[in-house]
């Protein structure tokens, strides 16, 4: 997609324009910011010519006065082509198409959640269709319940087929379709029920009208024009999708996609779109703990200082987190010193981090758009459909590259969607997966194999040998033997992989952290070094004549939104979890570690034992976090921090690109950004006199203090710049929303200045300029285009934007700390003497899109979507326990006992099982499970617990909504954004 654009000259209403040669006429017209209505075309789904809305007049030559009607979306552009947008016949035609669509459109814009950002409204106005001539009765449909996220109102449908084309064709959904015929076409599921795809939320944005609406947004609704928005980065996985968060009356209302040509494009996953609810959740920390507040009105800096002064000069260990911004982590590291800084990772994870960083150093990581371009994909032990869904969507698109090539051979451009799909048939780009759990991509991959993590590394080794043999290299005899001992089906798979790999021009290897296996990353490193060896390059350059071979790319998906940012701060002497505990237990005189500072860290990688140890040995635990957790209960001092929408910062995505997220709205004291709390600590505990009072100031401080600070600070930024407005120009209720307290209007909150040109300042008002490019756009809007389709008027098509990119700083020398890798697994004690048979096997946790992320888990809607506890085992093992598929088993995993249903997978090997238990955190995987039959009491307890959980979630959902409706009317006169002492 990021190829240099070839242009041709076309004449629109006798004016010459330069448009992209590779795209259709409609895209060309829109890229020139001209208005041409359309419905069924979508920039990333191509054209099908279904709606007949984009009719234009095409003229033979300058002398042609009559011309003929063509559909712009299915017409390629040619040099010197002449078209007219204003020809009366074409205008009339477009108006009549809308008029026909509107015959059955219900009269419900006022009660429609799409109203005000509706593509159909925009197009109706654009064509000039203003009065209804059809007097007959309207066709109606009944709606379906499509689950927790997407509402359905079928009467509004104009049958553009975009939903079908996105859900089924683009995202590979299976449970959605089109029913009926002629004037009775219905889009929905076979029966009511939750939409299964992880991308169902995109239906809301893809639908040009209000058939599909965001249920969570509708429940606490605001018009688009009333939302105060700011550019943000999704905080729920490492892909780093660009989002735009909207706020009204002090609560976050919704997340929508913000176009980024290289990362998320036009689509988001449901975890990112609907996971924002945690910001409004009941679990948010709103008061301090362990700090004595003098004035009943508000907490002051003096109160905090009085508490903290007792710890002055003491030695603290700081544990950063992959949820906190790069700035907050760096600030903490700078305060405690890198030898007292920990990333909250265990020894094993530190070893993984070290390998990960060295891989990043050596190989270029592809962007999501580049993943879409690859022609061979090998997935190693990561279920990206659940851990990095947006990347999995890109993998699905990559599978179509065979069709695109085939179509190109006979001259069909890639945007001719249905033609390309017809010629492509079922043929797909080769995708192979060596993994430990089945995934949703299995059905589209050429071959997959279920393996335990150890075998996985072995298998990769065998693959390396296989590739070396193919290249005609000498291989040691041991490796030959290893290959010979493999079963035939494995050999056949490896053969297949090698064959496709050698044919590929843009191969891609994908792996990740979810197996918690350092060995996997190590063997990936070996594989990559072979694929980048001179021999391999030579082979490929010889065999390919026409197109050039691109070296194999590697994408590794770490677990959290800022994992790489945090990892980039690690130094040789940084501490692992185990080292933190040993440091705390040492009683070595004056160099004694006094306490621990936890920065937005819930210590998920600590076992219960380790947590107890930490509590006993640390004199003081200071927790800075936004939500309640076990840690906030344990801690002596709790400082309430801001969540993603309430503060500024940078996250590094899986490629290491640092992306800025902006504050969307302000918070109520004493909730403030974690770096402000750290600054209070710096003054009182670490005796640093400097007071940091704005985000820009913090950035400057860090750029001075930290060597190799990755974010550019330019000296000559004009801060008298007007800035960009966070609110739309038609934001309403300004003089009334807080009038129940005082008729005097509140002062506008001051916004933080900017320190560089590519991150412009944003205003907390409707005053300011509109954004120049989509990367700094708080919301999508263009004159005449109120819907998200306005993006076609803001970004010029798929061209990469020229905005500056910051990458995390990667140290050239690899992290080699021997003490990290030397970890002894505490072997959990065998279950108590039991008379029943017990099966041992290696447990692999199935990743789940909605429950892997700690923050997103606070959404009641996600709990309602919780899959049942289940364990899938091999047939022999289950029958060895005397059980059948569907029976309940009890499983002992890392000292926790859980109950779930057992299922059978024929393709599993003897000592491997996989499953999901909602009680267990994401890092409990790749460990031994002791499985036995569950007795009736345990089953009953489990079932009642499960039921209770659902009831609680329902209750919680209602509670949150009720509370938000109350707080809507309590918009404070003045919201604090400058820390504790602002007046």
């Amino acid at each position, binding site marked *: 997609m990021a190829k240099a654009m070839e242009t041709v000259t076309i004449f629109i209403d006798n004016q010459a324009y330069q448009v992209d040669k590779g795209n259709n006429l409609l895209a060309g017209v829109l890229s020139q910011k001209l208005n041409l209505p359309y419905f069924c075309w979508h920039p990333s789904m191509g054209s099908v010519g279904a709606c007949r809305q984009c009719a234009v007049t095409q003229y033979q030559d300058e002398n042609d006065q009559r011309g003929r009607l063509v559909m712009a979306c299915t017409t390629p552009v040619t040099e010197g082509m002449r078209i007219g947008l204003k020809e009366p016949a074409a205008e009339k035609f477009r108006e009549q198409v809308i008029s026909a669509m509107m015959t059955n459109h219900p009269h*419900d814009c*006022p009660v429609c959640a799409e109203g005000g950002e509706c593509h159909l409204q925009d197009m109706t106005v654009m064509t000039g269709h203003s009065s209804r001539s059809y007097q007959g009765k309207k066709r109606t449909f009944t709606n379906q319940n499509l689950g927790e996220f997407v509402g359905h109102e079928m009467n509004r449908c104009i049958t553009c087929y975009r939903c079908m084309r996105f859900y089924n064709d683009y995202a590979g959904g299976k449970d959605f379709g089109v029913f009926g015929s002629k004037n009775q076409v219905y889009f929905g599921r076979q029966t009511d029920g939750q939409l299964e795809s992880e991308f169902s939320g995109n239906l809301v944005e893809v639908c040009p009208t209000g058939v599909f609406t965001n249920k969570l947004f509708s429940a606490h609704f605001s018009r688009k024009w009333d939302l105060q928005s700011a550019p943000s980065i999704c905080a729920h996985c490492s892909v780093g999708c660009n989002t735009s968060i909207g706020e009204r009356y002090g609560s976050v209302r919704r997340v929508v996609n913000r176009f980024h040509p290289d990362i998320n494009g036009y689509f988001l996953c449901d975890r990112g779109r609907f996971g924002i609810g945690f910001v409004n959740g009941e679990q948010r920390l709103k008061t301090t703990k362990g700090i004595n507040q003098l004035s009943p009105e508000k907490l002051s800096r003096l109160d905090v200082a009085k508490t903290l002064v007792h710890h002055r000069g003491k030695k603290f260990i700081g544990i950063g987190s992959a949820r906190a911004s790069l700035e907050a982590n760096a600030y903490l590291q700078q305060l405690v010193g890198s030898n007292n800084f920990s990333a909250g990772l265990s020894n094993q994870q530190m070893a993984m981090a070290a390998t990960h960083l060295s891989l990043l150093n050596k190989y270029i990581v592809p962007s999501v758009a580049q993943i879409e371009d690859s022609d061979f994909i090998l997935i190693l032990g990561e279920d990206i459909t659940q851990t990095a869904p947006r990347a999995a969507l890109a993998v699905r698109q990559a599978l179509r590259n065979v069709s695109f090539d085939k179509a190109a051979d006979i001259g069909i451009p890639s945007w001719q969607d249905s033609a390309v799909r017809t010629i492509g048939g079922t043929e797909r780009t080769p995708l192979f997966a060596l993994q430990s759990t089945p995934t949703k991509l299995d059905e589209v991959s050429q071959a997959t194999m279920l393996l335990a993590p150890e075998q996985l590394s072995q298998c990769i080794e065998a693959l390396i040998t296989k590739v070396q043999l193919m290249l005609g290299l000498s291989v040691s005899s041991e490796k030959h033997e290893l290959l010979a001992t493999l079963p035939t089906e494995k050999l056949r798979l490896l053969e297949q992989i090698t064959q496709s790999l050698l044919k590929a021009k843009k191969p891609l290897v994908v792996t990740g952290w979810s197996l918690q296996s350092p060995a996997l990353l190590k063997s990936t490193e070996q594989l990559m070094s072979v694929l980048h060896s001179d021999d391999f390059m030579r082979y490929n350059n010889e065999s390919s004549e026409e197109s050039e071979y691109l070296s194999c790319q590697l994408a590794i998906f770490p677990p959290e939104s800022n994992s790489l940012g945090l990892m980039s701060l690690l130094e040789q002497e940084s501490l692992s979890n185990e080292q933190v505990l040993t440091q705390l237990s040492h009683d070595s005189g004056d160099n004694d570690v006094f306490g621990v500072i936890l920065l937005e860290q819930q210590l998920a990688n600590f076992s219960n034992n380790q947590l107890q140890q930490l509590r006993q040995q640390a004199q003081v635990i200071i927790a800075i976090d936004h939500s309640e957790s076990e840690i906030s209960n344990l801690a002596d001092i709790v400082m309430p921090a801001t969540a993603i929408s309430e503060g500024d910062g940078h996250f590094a995505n899986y490629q290491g690109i640092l992306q800025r997220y902006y504050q969307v709205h302000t918070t109520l004291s004493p909730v403030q950004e974690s770096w402000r709390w750290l600054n209070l600590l710096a003054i009182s505990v670490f005796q640093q006199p400097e007071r940091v009072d704005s985000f820009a100031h913090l950035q400057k401080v860090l750029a001075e203090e930290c060597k190799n600070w990755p974010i550019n600070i330019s000296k000559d930024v004009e801060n008298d710049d007007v800035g960009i407005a966070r609110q739309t120009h038609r934001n309403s209720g300004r003089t009334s929303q807080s*009038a129940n307290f005082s*008729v005097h209007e509140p002062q506008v909150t001051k916004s933080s200045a900017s320190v560089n040109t590519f991150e412009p300042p944003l205003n907390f008002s409707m005053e300011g300029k509109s954004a120049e490019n989509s990367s700094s756009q708080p919301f999508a809007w263009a004159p005449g285009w109120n819907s998200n389709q306005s993006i076609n008027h803001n970004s010029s098509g798929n061209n990469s934007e020229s905005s500056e990119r910051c990458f995390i700083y990667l140290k050239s020398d690899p992290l080699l700390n021997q003490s990290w890798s030397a970890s002894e697994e505490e072997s959990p004690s065998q279950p108590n003497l039991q008379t029943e048979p017990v099966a041992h096997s290696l447990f692999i946790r199935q990743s789940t899109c909605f429950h892997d992320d700690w923050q997103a888990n606070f959404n009641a809607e996600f709990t309602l979507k919780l899959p049942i506890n289940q364990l899938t085992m091999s047939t022999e093992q289950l029958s060895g326990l005397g059980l059948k598929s569907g029976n309940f088993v009890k499983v002992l995993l890392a000292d926790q006992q859980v109950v779930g249903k057992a299922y059978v997978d024929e393709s599993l090997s003897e000592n491997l099982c996989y499953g999901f238990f909602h009680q267990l955190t994401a890092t409990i995987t790749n460990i031994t499970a002791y499985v036995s039959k569950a007795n009736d009491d345990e089953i009953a307890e489990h079932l009642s617990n499960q039921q209770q959980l659902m009831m609680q979630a329902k209750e919680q959902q209602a509670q949150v909504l009720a509370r938000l409706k109350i707080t809507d009317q309590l918009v404070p006169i003045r919201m604090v954004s400058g820390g504790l002492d602002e007046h």
Partner: protein
Amino acid sequence: MKTLFSMFYSQLRTMGLILKHTFTKADTVQYPEEQPYLAPRYRGRIVLTRDPSGEERCVACNLCAVACPTDCISLQQTIDDDGRKRAEFFRINFSRCILCGFCEEACPTYAIQLTPDVELAEYERQNLVYEKEHLLISGPGKYPDYSFYQQSGLAISGKEKGQGEQEKTPIDVKGLMP
């Protein structure tokens, strides 16, 4: 001579006219003891009306708020158990309102209407902030027959899909008949 005559005539005529006005009915009234007549379409205090069945007409669509040039209307939508959308709160700050009537023009359900009551004076500005309970009246106002939900495609309790005034019965998607 002629000019002299016209000068006298002018004086007498003026005196005559003034004398005549002494016997005509005065245009001014003894406000507030006497109230002037204001037409029903006069733009005064704003009210929220109810539909013929006595339910609130306002569906909290926000169009009045966005049309308001002084931004003095704020509200929040809520969906009630009967499927109707209503305003959770609806506030007009009359100390800002200029009685332009744009909100009434914008209202798609005839809910917000301006009345001929122009007596909006308070000693305290704060008392000019009207909440929903102050705005809501019990009648339909100027449009006695209009009921929005009968026209819209939305189902509410008591009116299923296809039972609206301009609607056919819902299509059976799985039916085989053409």
